[in-house]
């Protein structure tokens, strides 16, 4: 059982006063996510939670029979915000299947594009979407006592970001009006420009192919990128300081807030940014080049690193059903019985999965979601772990820190922390930030990790720029390697989408796709109860969490629950809308959006 243990509860409990509360769809995320809860207002806690999605993702169904070289362009359309992560991951999988290694400059260009994507996406999500839950208007409507205290509390990093009190920072978070909100929009534009320099177009890249890139490696491409990177550096440094101030204040002012969204530490990270010196895309050497990635892959269980081997990660993947609208494929013929190293591949592994959708009425005691339940089978304990991604950055930083393998001029993993050095920028001097492994995997830490990872991506971008420019200065401008599509092959790609783990599994037969399964982060995070009854991470994190909102059931906004769900950076990638029932509208109570004025 992977669910979080029961939280410590006060000895005296009042008779329960349970109210059904639901948010469907949840706003300020991508896709259709519904959260259905039972809240005990007498004891101020969430008793039960179920997460559901009314989106059917049909990619694995219609990819069959297509030319595998098209996979990167098609799967990019899974998502409207991190499509390039899919293209990159698909290309990784294809490069393994075709046996082709792109030239080093191509790898640096992809890495630079992905770094810009992390910076763009985390900034727009954190500052324009997450902070609405922490802004002055929202706090005033949900916890007026907290705002009064914030007015009296000085911001420890005021000298760095210029906001005297915590309430001033919260005011800067106010949507449409606050300074941080407006500045973040500009930063996300500039970082998107950086992305386009490398990958041609945002968010569906036009210059990424298996075997390399179509980007012309002219010196100006890199200097244009660099000048934009330097322009956003002040913002990045200030964002980290502001986040630390606000989140530390929440811990201090609301004792017990660490319990909000806390779950057992079960984090998965599949690694990002290939190291072209080591990576040859062969399955046989995948462990070696996986460990050389600039974000180290890993599965972290209860704070301990369980593995950093991509082969182990790959073989442990299990796609379970239990509460999803699909028929089981256990009786089908397997596509891959053994991996290239001779290890047996499970029938529930994505390589062997067959998606058979079975639309039906939503039943919270039976099947209630289009999301399946990906789990990671832990051989040591025999458990099917419901890993989450911590919204992406938490798992990436945690795994990288514990592994202690990343050692570049700008980023260094120490075994217990990650040290990020950013050079001098327009206003601020050279700065070294240190993200330390936190005590909990909870809402605040998921949100806090995000700006740190923006800094991480910015720092790594400097490193990639230096590597790329060194090659260009030497006249090495190779960016593409040709290849033949084999008649039969298998491949897998491991990458980090902005919000966490991303894998693509590909089987080629007769030079066509026989099976293709992308597993982005949200199926892991938003999964419903699996066949063992284990709840998915959203459900697990929300279930049992205390409620700190001062409002009663009548004007309840559910801000603590929304903070928890949004801390995972939910993104239910696009699919085919399915019609539920006979035109009945799903019961939608209320969804806190755009500050306090909309209830």
């Amino acid at each position: 059982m992977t669910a979080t243990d029961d939280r410590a509860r006060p000895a005296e409990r009042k008779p329960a006063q349970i109210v059904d509360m639901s948010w469907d769809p949840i706003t300020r995320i991508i896709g259709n996510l519904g959260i259905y809860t039972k809240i005990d207002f007498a004891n101020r806690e969430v008793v039960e939670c179920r997460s559901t999605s009314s989106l059917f993702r049909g990619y694995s169904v219609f990819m069959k029979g297509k030319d595998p070289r098209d996979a990167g362009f098609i799967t990019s359309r899974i998502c409207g915000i991190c499509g390039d992560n899919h293209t990159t991951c698909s290309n990784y999988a294809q490069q393994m299947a075709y046996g082709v290694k792109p030239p080093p400059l191509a790898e640096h260009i992809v890495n630079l594009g992905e770094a810009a994507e992390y910076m763009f996406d985390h900034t727009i999500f954190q500052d324009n979407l997450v902070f609405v839950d922490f802004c002055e208007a929202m706090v005033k409507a949900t916890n007026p006592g907290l705002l009064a205290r914030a007015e009296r509390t000085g911001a420890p990093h005021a000298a760095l970001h210029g906001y005297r009190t915590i309430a001033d920072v919260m005011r800067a978070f106010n949507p449409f009006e606050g300074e941080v909100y407006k500045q973040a929009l500009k930063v996300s534009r500039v970082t998107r420009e950086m992305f386009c320099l490398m990958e041609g177009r945002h968010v569906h890249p036009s210059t990424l192919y298996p075997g390399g890139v179509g980007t012309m490696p002219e010196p100006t491409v890199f200097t244009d990128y660099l000048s934009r990177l330097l322009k956003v550096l002040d913002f990045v440094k200030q964002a980290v300081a502001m986040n630390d101030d606000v989140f530390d204040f929440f811990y201090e002012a609301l004792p017990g807030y660490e319990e909000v969204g806390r779950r057992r530490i079960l984090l998965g990270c599949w690694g990002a940014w290939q190291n072209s010196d080591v990576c040859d895309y062969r399955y046989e050497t995948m462990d070696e080049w996986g460990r050389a990635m600039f974000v180290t892959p890993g599965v972290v269980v209860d704070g301990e690193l369980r593995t950093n081997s991509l082969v182990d990660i790959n073989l442990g993947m299990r796609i379970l059903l239990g509460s999803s609208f699909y028929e089981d494929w256990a009786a089908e013929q397997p596509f891959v019985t053994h991996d290239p190293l001779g290890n047996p591949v499970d029938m529930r592994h994505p390589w062997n999965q067959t998606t058979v959708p079975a639309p039906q009425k939503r039943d919270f005691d039976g099947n209630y979601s289009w999301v399946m339940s990906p789990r990671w089978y832990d051989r040591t304990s025999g458990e099917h772990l419901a890993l989450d991604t911590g919204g992406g950055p938490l798992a990436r930083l945690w795994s990288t820190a514990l592994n202690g393998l990343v050692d570049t001029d700008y980023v260094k993993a120490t075994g217990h922390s990650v040290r990020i050095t950013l050079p001098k920028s327009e206003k601020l001097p050279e700065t070294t930030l240190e993200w330390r492994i936190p005590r909990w995997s909870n809402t605040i830490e998921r949100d806090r990790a995000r700006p740190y990872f923006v800094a991480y991506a910015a720092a790594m971008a400097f490193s990639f720029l230096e590597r790329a420019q060194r090659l260009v200065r030497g006249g090495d401008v190779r960016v593409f390697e040709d290849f033949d599509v084999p008649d039969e092959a298998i491949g897998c790609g491991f990458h980090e989408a902005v919000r966490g783990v991303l894998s693509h599994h590909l089987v080629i037969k007769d030079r066509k796709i026989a099976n293709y399964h992308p597993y982005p982060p949200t199926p892991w995070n938003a999964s419903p109860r699996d066949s063992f009854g284990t709840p998915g991470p959203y459900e697990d994190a929300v279930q049992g969490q205390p409620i700190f909102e001062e409002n009663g059931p009548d004007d309840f906004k559910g801000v603590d629950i929304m903070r928890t769900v949004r801390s995972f950076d939910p993104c239910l990638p696009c699919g085919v809308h399915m019609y539920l029932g006979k035109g009945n509208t799903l019961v939608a109570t209320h969804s806190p959006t755009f500050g306090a004025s909309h209830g």
Partner: protein
Amino acid sequence: MGTIRVGRPDVKPDTPGHVKGMHQGNKGRTYRQPGHHKDGTADSRRSTGIHWKKHNAIMKIMPNLPPG
């Protein structure tokens, strides 16, 4: 269908799906591309066929970086 009266077609035919002389991806690998050298460097022939020898780097110590 045969009885439907139609006017004279006044649309231009589609542009050809393939330009003669261009390499088609499905034919297999491209073993030679003008201006690309085996060691990863390139010369101005990569960018143009017109007076390309006059558009290379002017000194040997300079990297040859033809424009896109």
